[in-house]
């Protein structure tokens, strides 16, 4: 069974949930920029949440599956495909993910997970040091991927009726929604998890906890808006606006930073760190995006405008606990339906 890369897309890499214990070696956690979308995509195809998937950025790849397979696409929406849903595709089908909207990162999970060697306990790709994934690099035309050998076509959900959507001749429409009903009502254009979707990726200001150098700037982070720069990447979302200038001239020693940390370099343009950010940083830390809002931040496209608002640590913890419970229930519901 092979997944053939006909066109690689802009920056397509194999990612899982990253390396959570490599910081002592200076290794970023890495993994999916939007870990929430990756986890749900994996659940939708019966995988463990940490299975390796294909992360698409801005322009996704064009892939051909040699065998019938179950997939799911979560995160940004690939035009022509239902997202946040289990899909079944026939042998030989073309999966064209080149038109991505409503986000930056789309995750294509395949039943069984993508089979590449694990390096330092993860299949994630760190292109900076050519580590992990497929030869430590983004996908190229002519690459072949396969699901893990443990995958079998008889996995949950592959039984019973399957096949193309009647009528539509385009290849993209042949990836049909999984026949068994999933736990939430399907809404046009939104997928079955509409209720969660709005709270996970909705449009209110991004919530932050104040950072160590919060008081050291001429302006507050929560005053005004910022534009997202096209120079953003997996290391961070780069913002521009009225510069945040530091009132204290002293140079800071390097210290640990983490995805979600908002650093302010001397030019005053903040950077919200993402999965591939370095483990130590020397720039002032004005604030940190709360963990439940990090998926949303990762998905904001260049040209968009964002605003921040401060919340307390208690509130952030509360939101994280609630999200954790919500996801546990969702995972269970999906699993039940896939049996």
């Amino acid at each position, binding site marked *: 069974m092979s997944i053939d890369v006909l066109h690689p897309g802009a920056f397509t890499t194999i990612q899982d949930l990253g390396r*959570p*214990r*490599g*910081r*002592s*070696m*200076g*290794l970023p956690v890495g993994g999916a920029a939007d870990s929430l979308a990756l986890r749900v995509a994996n659940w939708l195809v019966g995988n463990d949440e940490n299975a390796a998937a294909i992360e698409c950025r801005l322009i996704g790849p064009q892939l051909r599956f040699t065998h019938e397979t179950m997939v799911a696409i979560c995160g940004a929406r690939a035009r022509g495909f239902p997202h946040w849903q289990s899909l079944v595709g026939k042998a030989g089908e073309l999966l064209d993910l080149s038109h991505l909207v409503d986000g930056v990162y789309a995750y294509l999970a395949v039943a069984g997970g993508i089979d590449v060697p694990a*390096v*330092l306990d993860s299949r994630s790709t760190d292109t*900076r*040091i050519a*580590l992990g994934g497929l030869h430590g690099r983004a996908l190229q035309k002519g690459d072949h991927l396969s699901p893990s050998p443990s995958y079998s076509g008889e996995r949950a959900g592959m039984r019973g009726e399957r096949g193309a959507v009647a009528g539509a001749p385009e290849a993209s429409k042949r990836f049909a929604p999984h026949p068994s009903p999933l736990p939430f009502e399907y809404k046009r254009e939104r997928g079955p998890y509409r209720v969660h979707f709005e709270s996970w990726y909705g449009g209110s200001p991004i919530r932050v*906890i104040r*950072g*160590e150098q919060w008081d050291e700037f001429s302006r507050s982070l929560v005053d005004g808006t910022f534009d997202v720069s096209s120079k953003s990447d997996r290391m961070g979302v780069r913002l521009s606006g009225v510069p945040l200038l530091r009132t204290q001239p002293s140079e800071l*020693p*390097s*210290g*640990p*930073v*983490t995805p*979600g*940390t908002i650093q302010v370099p001397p030019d005053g343009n903040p950077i919200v760190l993402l999965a591939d950010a*370095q*483990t*130590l940083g020397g720039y002032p*830390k004005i604030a*940190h*995006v*709360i*963990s439940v809002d990090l998926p949303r931040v990762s998905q904001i496209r260049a040209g968009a405008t964002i605003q921040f608002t401060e919340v307390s*640590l*208690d509130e*952030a*913890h509360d939101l*994280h*606990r609630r999200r*954790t*419970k919500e996801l546990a229930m969702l995972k269970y519901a999906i699993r039940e339906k896939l049996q």
Partner: protein
Amino acid sequence: MRIIPLGDSAVTIQLSSPDRARAVAGALKTQQLPGVIDALAAFAGVTVYYDSAELKYCHLCDWIKKLAHAMSEEPALEDSRSVEIPVRYGGDAGPDLADVSRAAGLSVAEVIALHQATEYVVLAVGFMPGFAYLGGLPDVLQTPRRRTPRTIVPAGSVGIGGMYTGVYPFASPGGWNLIGQTDAVLFDPNRSSAALFQVGQRVRFVARG
């Protein structure tokens, strides 16, 4: 003892010394308290990464404080051997050696001798995988980072940046003053200990060829 939140999933605590930070981080990793994901010693601080859905924040803070108090004594060095890093100093391998010696008011030979004479300690590993900030650089050798960083510093470059010395494990942009080159492999994912340098380790440079 101040515990500073680093967002909602990590906290940093400053301790009195790097050795003490290393001991506290090590103890946290060994104890594997549910909800503690990782502990990172960097300079004299420890950053603890946690899951607030598994561990109450107040319990985490209490735990860290108890550990820090329990380790108020300087811990004994586990392993007093230094790791030796062979270096080719100067020439093409060290394009900034002349600048460093000029700034120090020493001859190139004196700089090379002094760089080797010191036993350094790994204070932090970060910036890149396997990149260590080595403390103990003699005052006279401390040289500010270059005004214009290089877009590419070759892998294995030995440099001086402010009060630290260190080695670039990979080719990368860099602003340190390059005084030599080593063939030592600083990061190898296939090695049992992927990063050559760990916090608290003692390091010496030795001139070769």
